[in-house]
C-alpha cells in the first residue's frame, strides 16, 4: 500500500475513534429526551416543575419534581460551601507554602481520595456520621441534607483541589517575584496576585466539583434520607434527583408513565450538569 494511503487510513481511523465518544453522547442524549419528553402527555410542564407531590406509584400517580430539584440544589450548595474553601485553600497551601517534597507526596494522596468508591463514602455517612449528627447535634434523623452535603464535599474536594493546584502552579514565578519585590507580604501575594491570576482555573475546578456533586448518586441514595420534601433547615431529609431515579427505575414498568417521568428527571439532571460544565468551559476560556 502506498504510504499516502496508509497515512490517510490512519487519520480516518483516529477521526472515527475521536468522534465515537461524541456519537455516543449524542445517542444517549437523544435517547434521554426521547424517553423523557412523553411524560408531558400526563402532566403539564408547569405542574411537573413547580408542584411538590411526588407520588409516582399512587393511583392516579403524581409527577411533580420541585422537591427533588430543591433537594439536588440544596445538597450541592452545602457540599460547595464546604468543599470550595477547603479545596482551594489546600491547593494554595500546597503551591505557596508547602515544601516541594511534601507537595509531591500530598498531591497524589489527595487525588487518591477521588478514587474512594462512592458506596464506601455513603456507607461511612450512614454508619458513622448519621449517629453522630443525632447524638451530638440532636438532629431528628442523621440521614439528612447536611450529612449528604458533607459526604459529597468529601468527594469533590479532590477534584477542586487538584485542578486548582494545577492552575496555581501554572502562575508564572515572575508574578510572585514582582509582587514580593514591591513589598507585598507572602499572604498578600497569594491572596491578591496568585489566586486572581489563576482565577479561571480555580473557577473551572469549582464548577467541575459542583457538577460532580449534583450528579453523584450512591451517596445521596444512602445518606440523604429520601423524603420528598422541601427542606426547612439543614438537618431535614431530602430526596435529590439521582436518588429518586436510582431507587425507582428498577420497578418502573417499561415505557410506563413512571418510567417516562424518571427519564424526564434524568433530563433535568442532565441539563443541570450541562450548565455547570458550560460555565466551567466559559470560565476556563476567559484566560485573563
Amino acid at each position, binding site marked *: 500500500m502506498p504510504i499516502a494511503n496508509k497515512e490517510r487510513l490512519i487519520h480516518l481511523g483516529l477521526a472515527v475513534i475521536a468522534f465515537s465518544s461524541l456519537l455516543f453522547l449524542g445517542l444517549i442524549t437523544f435517547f434521554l429526551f426521547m424517553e423523557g419528553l412523553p411524560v408531558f402527555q400526563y402532566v403539564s410542564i408547569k405542574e411537573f416543575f413547580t408542584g411538590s407531590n411526588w407520588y409516582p406509584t399512587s393511583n392516579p400517580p403524581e409527577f411533580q419534581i420541585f422537591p427533588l430539584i430543591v433537594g439536588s440544589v440544596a445538597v450541592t450548595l452545602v457540599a460547595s460551601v464546604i468543599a470550595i474553601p477547603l479545596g482551594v485553600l489546600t491547593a494554595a497551601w500546597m503551591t505557596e507554602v508547602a515544601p516541594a517534597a511534601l507537595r509531591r507526596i500530598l498531591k497524589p494522596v489527595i487525588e487518591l481520595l477521588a478514587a474512594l468508591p462512592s458506596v464506601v463514602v455513603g456507607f461511612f455517612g450512614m454508619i458513622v456520621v448519621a449517629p453522630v449528627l443525632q447524638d451530638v447535634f440532636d438532629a431528628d*434523623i442523621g440521614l439528612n441534607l447536611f450529612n449528604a452535603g458533607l459526604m459529597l464535599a468529601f468527594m469533590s474536594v479532590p477534584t477542586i483541589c487538584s485542578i486548582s493546584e494545577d492552575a496555581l502552579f501554572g502562575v508564572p514565578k515572575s508574578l510572585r517575584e514582582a509582587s514580593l519585590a514591591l513589598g507585598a507580604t507572602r499572604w498578600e501575594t497569594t491572596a491578591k496576585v496568585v489566586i486572581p491570576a489563576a482565577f479561571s482555573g480555580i473557577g473551572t475546578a469549582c464548577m467541575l466539583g459542583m457538577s460532580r456533586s449534583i450528579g453523584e448518586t450512591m451517596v445521596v441514595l444512602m445518606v440523604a434520607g429520601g423524603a420528598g420534601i422541601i427542606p426547612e433547615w439543614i438537618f431535614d431529609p431530602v430526596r435529590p434527583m439521582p436518588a429518586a431515579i436510582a431507587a*425507582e427505575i428498577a420497578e418502573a414498568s417499561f415505557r410506563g408513565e413512571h418510567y417516562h417521568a424518571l427519564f424526564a428527571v434524568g433530563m433535568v439532571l442532565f441539563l443541570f450538569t450541562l450548565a455547570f460544565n458550560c460555565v466551567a468551559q466559559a470560565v476556563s476560556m476567559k484566560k485573563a
Partner: protein
Amino acid sequence: MFKAIAAFLLGIMVTAPAYAASQEIMINGSTTVLPVMQKVGEAFMNANPGSSLAISGGGSGNGIKALSEGLCQVAMSSRDIKDSERAEAEARGVNPYRIAIAMDALVPVVHPDNPVKEISVEQLRDIYSGKITNWQELGGEDAKIVVISRDSSSGTFETWEEIIMKKTKVSPTALMQASNGAVVQAVSKNKKAIGYIGFGYLNNSLKQINVNGIVAGAETALDGTWPIARELYLFTNGEPQGELKKLVDFVLDPKKGQKYVLDIGYIPLKD
C-alpha cells in the same frame, strides 16, 4: 454504518444472557426473597454437583420484568404478579407460573429504648400519613416521630400500602429507604424512629411492636391473625420442568428448602 454498529451491539446484548443461561439457572428479583434463595441455592448446588445457580436481587418488579424478557428463568417476588405484567409477559410469549414458597410478616419496629409496645392498624396509618406526629400520642415520650418507609417502588411498600395505608397516602416527610437493611440501620440508630421490615430482618437492635394486640410470629402469620402478612413467590415460565423442577421441589421440601426459610426468619409453608 450506524445500522451495522447498532445490530452488532444489539447482538451482544441479546446473545450474552442467552449464552450464560444455557449453563446456569438465572434467578432474579425481590430482595425480600433473596436471602432465602441464596441459602437454599447454596444447599441445592451442594446436593447437586454440576448444577449452577446465579442469584441476584433487584426488586420484585425487576425480577418479573427479567422473566418476561427471558433474562432469567426464575423470578423472585414478594407480591403477586400484576395484570399489566402478566399481559407484558404473555405478549413476549412467556407464561408466568406462580409458586408460593414462604410466608413473610411485616413488622413495625422501633428503637429498643422506645417504651411504646402496642399499636393499632389505624394508628399506624395515621403515623405514616402524618396525622400522628408525636410519640406522646401513643403513650411514649414527648418526641417527634421520625417515619421511615420503604421506597414506593418496593414490594414491601406495596404490601404496606395495601394492608395498612388503604387509600391514604404516605406523607412526603417519611424517609424512603432503599432496602430492609437500610431501615434496620436507620431505626436501630434512632430513638425517635419507626419503620417496618420483613420478619426475617428482626434482630436484637430493634424492638417489634404488637399490632391490634397480636404478637408477630410464625403461628400468627400462618393462621392469618397477624394483620400484616404476605406470601412470597417464585415465578417460572410455565410449570417448571427438568432442572428447574428439581430446584422448586428442593425449595418446597420441608426437610430441605423450607428449613432454610425458617433459618432466614420467614415462615415455612409446609412442615
